[in-house]
């Protein structure tokens, strides 16, 4: 038991050890730096797997916890309190899983300020894991803010053309939310006399039956709820607070986008489950229909807007709004099915959308463009890459047998039977499933299918012209290259073909994503198993606040 106590600290601080190693090493030794970063992230992954092994799925409460006083200021006592339960363990694992993929991709593509770059990545990992394991509101806030800084620099230094704008917008948006959350946290710490989440939760639960409730007034509870909610809603992002997302995603380097979509957005959804549902059950029940409507708007709006994009990366960015709409919908279904689905879908979205951003990054590295119209027929010249990309696209689309479906299905099932949302919400949510096919297949068709569009054609009048079209000097070689690739898989880098085969690191990253997609899709039982006890407890707690006559409740809430 003593050993397990330290386990969570090991997972949390192992990226910091990596950073220290990187800082000790000389600035110039780029080759070695990236390997150290990769190994460091893999070590974290290994430790998180050990953590998973030590985790007892039958316990609903916090476990493997580590509690110590950090500092005390008047009646504010800030503790160093870390631990995991069923809601967070999978997200810790997700973080540890996504980070090596991001580093793998970066190995040969990032060439500037290498040491700083990997240091920021590892710092980000530290902060993100910290957010997921912190069980003290103040500690949580510290990690929350720390996670902001490396992302800001990743976008601002290694991003594309408008990186500064994107980085500042990202920073300001998130900060605006954070400040409200800070106020709410300080108020809570003052009122409850502790920042300990579990203690506050216990106090709230104890006051459940009493007429006045845990908070001085409903308005106070609403304000506190909003303080947390707006911070998380910006992070998720919930419509209409999504405006920073396309900028940050499009301008961020590929690894940044992967982490942003893969993990960083989950900080918001995780926060909703942990804090909004956990600490303000009454307000969650009251506001669930309204938030449900926002989620539905997000699902449909994100999918719709995504369809009109001309930039692959932006398309994928907007798809996140739609996908996270599902997660929010599941969370505010307030039943075990919805929350289970949402928690799994957080992981799924990390895998699928992370994979999609990897895919976009790989295309970009080859063609140096993200315009959908510039592509076409990639399937023909890169069959292996396209096959893997197809699986990722389908997983994002929610094809049964892959991970996305399990999450979406469970969420919508939960929504349909939710005591606060109901079938109508499921109806509109399911429309999002159709729209997902519309925009993802649009992307897939334009980029991967259709006639092979050699880059040469871009100089011609019409991008539609096949390889043989146009009078460019490189034409002969291109035709030759296309012909070569035609019969076999040896789509080499000969001639003007920019579609070089996947390098080993790209291949490994994609295969890892695909395997994860299949495993969760075919056998999600253990994943649900890890979260089941905690989700069940959360749902049972929420159920106490849902009046038996749910019909009256929903009308009232409207």
């Amino acid at each position: 038991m003593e050993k397990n106590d330290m386990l969570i600290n090991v997972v949390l601080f192992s990226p910091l050890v990596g950073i220290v190693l990187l800082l000790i090493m000389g600035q110039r030794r780029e080759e070695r730096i990236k390997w150290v970063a990769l190994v460091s992230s893999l070590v974290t992954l290994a430790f998180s797997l050990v953590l998973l092994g030590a985790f007892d799925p039958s316990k609903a409460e916090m476990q493997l916890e580590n509690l110590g006083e950090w500092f005390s200021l008047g009646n504010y006592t800030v503790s160093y309190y870390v631990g995991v339960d069923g809601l967070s363990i999978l997200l810790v694992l997700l973080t540890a899983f996504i980070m090596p993929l991001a580093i793998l991709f970066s190995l040969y593509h990032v060439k500037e300020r290498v040491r700083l770059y990997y240091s920021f990545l590892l710092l980000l990992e530290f902060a993100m894991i910290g957010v997921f394991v912190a069980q003290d509101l103040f500690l949580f806030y510290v990690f929350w803010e720390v996670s902001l800084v490396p992302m800001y620099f990743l976008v601002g230094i290694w991003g594309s053309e408008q990186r500064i704008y994107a980085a500042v917008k990202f920073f300001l948006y998130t900060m605006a939310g954070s400040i409200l959350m800070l106020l709410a946290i300080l108020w809570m710490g003052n009122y409850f006399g502790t920042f300990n989440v579990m203690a506050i939760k216990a106090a709230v639960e104890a006051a459940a039956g009493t007429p006045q409730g845990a908070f001085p007034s409903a308005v106070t509870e609403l304000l506190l709820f909003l303080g947390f909610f707006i911070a998380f809603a910006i992070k998720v992002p919930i419509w209409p607070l999504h405006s920073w997302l396309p900028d940050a995603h499009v301008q961020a380097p590929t690894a940044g986008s992967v982490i942003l979509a893969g993990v960083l957005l989950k900080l918001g959804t995780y926060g909703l489950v942990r804090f909004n549902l956990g600490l303000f059950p009454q307000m969650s029940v009251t506001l669930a229909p309204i938030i449900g409507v926002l989620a539905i708007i997000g699902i449909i709006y994100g999918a719709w807007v995504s369809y009109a994009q001309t930039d692959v990366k932006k398309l994928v960015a907007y798809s996140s709004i739609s996908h996270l709409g599902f997660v929010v919908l599941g969370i505010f279904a307030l039943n075990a099915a919805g929350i289970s689905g949402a928690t799994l879908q957080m992981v799924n979205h990390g895998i699928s959308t992370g994979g999609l951003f990897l895919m976009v990054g790989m295309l970009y590295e080859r063609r140096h463009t993200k315009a959908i119209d510039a592509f076409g027929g990639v399937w023909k010249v890169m069959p292996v890459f396209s096959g893997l990309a197809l699986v990722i696209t389908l997983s994002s689309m929610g094809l049964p047998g892959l991970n996305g479906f399990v999450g979406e299905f469970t969420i919508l099932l939960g929504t349909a039977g939710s005591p606060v949302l109901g079938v109508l919400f499921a109806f509109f949510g399911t429309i999002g499933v159709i729209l997902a096919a519309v925009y993802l297949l649009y992307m897939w068709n334009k980029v991967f299918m259709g006639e092979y569009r050699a880059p040469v054609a871009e100089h011609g009048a019409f991008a539609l012209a096949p390889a043989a079209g146009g009078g460019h000097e490189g034409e002969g070689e291109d035709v030759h290259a296309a012909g070569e690739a035609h019969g076999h898989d040896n789509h080499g880098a000969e001639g003007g073909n920019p579609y070089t085969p996947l390098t080993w690191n790209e291949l490994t990253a994609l295969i890892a994503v695909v395997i994860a997609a299949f495993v969760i899709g075919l056998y999600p039982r253990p994943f649900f198993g890890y979260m089941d006890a905690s989700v069940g407890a959360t749902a049972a707690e929420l159920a106490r606040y849902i009046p038996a006559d749910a019909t009256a409740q929903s009308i009232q809430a409207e």
Partner: protein
Amino acid sequence: MEVIASFVPLVVILPFAGALLNLFLGRYLSEKLIGALATTAAALAFAVAAVMTVGITAHGYEAVVVNPPILDSWIYIPSAAIDIPWQMRVDTLSLTMMLVVTGVGTLIHLYAIGYMHGDPRFARFFVYLNLFLGFMLILVTGNNFLMMFVGWEGVGLCSFLLIGFWFDKKHGEGWKNSNAARKAFIVNRVGDFGLLLAIFLIFWTYGTLDYYKPNEVLHIGGEKAAADVLVREGGDGIAHGQKGVFAQTEAWLAEGGHIVSFGVFELPFETVVTLITLFMLIGVTGKSAQIPLFVWLPDAMAGPTPVSALIHAATMVTAGVYLITRNSVLYHAAPLSAALVTVVGAATALMAGFIALGQWDIKKVLAYSTVSQLGFMVAAVGIGGYAAGMFHLITHAFFKALLFLGSGSVIHAMEHGHHHAHAHHESEHGEESHGHADHAHEEAFDPQDMRNMGGLARRMPITFVTYLIGTLALAGIFPLAGFWSKDEILGKAFNAAFIDGKLEGFAMLGLLLAAAGFTAFYMWRQIKLVFLGVPRTEAAAAATESSPSMTIPLLVLAALSIFGGALNIPLGVNSVLVIGVLFITAGFWLLWALPSVRLFFIGRAEPVTSLPSLKPAFRLIALGSAAAFMLSGAAIILVPSLGASYPLETLVLWLEHSVPYTKGLTLNPFLAILALGIGIGGILLAQRVYSPAPLAEGNQDVLEIRPDTRPAFQLANAKLYWDETYGRLIEQPYNRAAAWLAHKLDWEFWHDRFHHTVFRDFYKRAADFIATPVDRGAIDQGFLRIGRAVAQAAARLRTVQTGYVRTYVFTMLFGVVLVMLILLLPLLRQ
């Protein structure tokens, strides 16, 4: 039976294994090995299904629920009482589907070896085909709605992959194929949306998605006996859902007045069942190509022809019929939905039959014909003729697969003929290898356009005769398969109309009889255009018969199309055997005595006396698969009939063991003669209209020339403007709205203007305001004044500034304490 049925996972695993092997090893294998591997996987699956059929027959048709090893539960969330296992069901219905899917599938695999020869992605094609089989088998073997849904979407994916298989064709063809694939997927997704909602409702109504729980006894023939339900033991935390969906429905219906609560509202049980079945119908219209979602199927013909035969005619598109048959209990309990199903099916049958009259593309005719025949099936299951619908599903699988493969043979021959003629004229092109890939460079020739054909009967005798058999079977000519199944459907409609007095029965009868007339007409028009008369192009004149791997499946399917009707002829075992032998003999006479048949139709015979010889290497593979296939098929008929205690039943009786509310056979002699008359009449009319020459000058249809039929033909030719209407009503508004939302609302307004104007400019203006009038003005002045005061105070306080560090530290500490006191103020107040 338990033991034999426990093989059922193999039926699914075998095709998936084949797909995986070809996916990873395909590039190292030769075409023949790839084809053999895939075909063997399909044939073995068929063999397993056949063995299980024998087993289930020997054990009194008892249904068995099988939990596959390793994957125990799929979605299992105890806290939410969700338990959706990977669980399979072997009963007569699922076995029927398994046999059809794997049986026809095997033949089409074999055919595809020849058809896809030389394709650069040969291995990939067979990966997809096997993958399709696997998903289709999941669809039919699953014991719960979600497993069915897995198959349902999975086959949709394979359909997408295969329609877009030639995505890289040149001259815009590739884009056309890709878009057809996308259209199929998206339209099917609309259907899936309905099915998903039905599944949600089912779950919250019943607490389970299982069709039947293990050991649950089924009601047969609609008797409402109390269900003998075994409650599952063990505390897995799942409180409700001890009964399967169908048993629970029966129980609640018998009980009456059950109210279902959905959390935020409540509904009477009957209403819920109606809703469920209506949402399910949306799914059916998507997958089974009914109004209003049928528009994807004609476009799906962009895929290679074996795909059209297997997926878009014989198996996948019949999934909707299977779904309704499986849910016979629910549809029986929801007369409104059932009536709607009937009307949708019958209307689709007529509508698609009409469009088929005006098509030029050989595959488009068959595609609309498929939509029409699916309408027959859907109408049949809607009116309660579950066995009739399944019967037509089976016979249709035979003859429509036959027709599609025949059309593939024709297209193949036309392509090669065109190539041949082309090479003849321009010898410099002759050096290019044969194959599909390089056909694209030959522009402006459509090998699928029937106007380019004509007189192919002489060039392709086997294809012709088998195609003829398929046509006659489709037209419902006695004694071919289609006659029996179509008559069964019409009989059900007749009974519903005149015995039960159902309105939709009358509508269905009228619509289907008219559709049957159309069927005969457009099929004979096709025969006239393609096979009879004289060749109209050089390509047609140079066409040659296809290779044995393509013609053997044609022969087998032709035989099945001939005696498939015997499945449901209500006679004893011996008579069935006798009739079977008679049919087979007749069929083979028809096939082998080609010269005389040709003489009859064409007049002048060329000496074709035997099948082309098989190449030795290929023969082994072909014969091996064929032997396994034939033996398994024979086993179904022979093994049960060996012992007297195993009576061979008709399809209706066989299905009654798994499909509740299947009513007995309805062979109506009056209707049979009427339908036969309509079929023959349609053929004769077409023969009359399209003689002597099927095409008028300018390659126009004869009907197009005549002023009285002209508008109708043009309407049919334009496909009734469905695509245009959808484009205008749905697609374009959606695209425009997407563009507006994305570029105007989200980007220009929300992202740019709102953020810049409201946030940034406001901030700036506020900053300016604070900086200039406030800061420089009031505050500055204020501070100046304060400053002066401070200066005076400072002068006085100068004595405090001791220069000692400890004083400063003390002051700081004092400040900190002050701040802390302010922070602690709330505490003091308490």
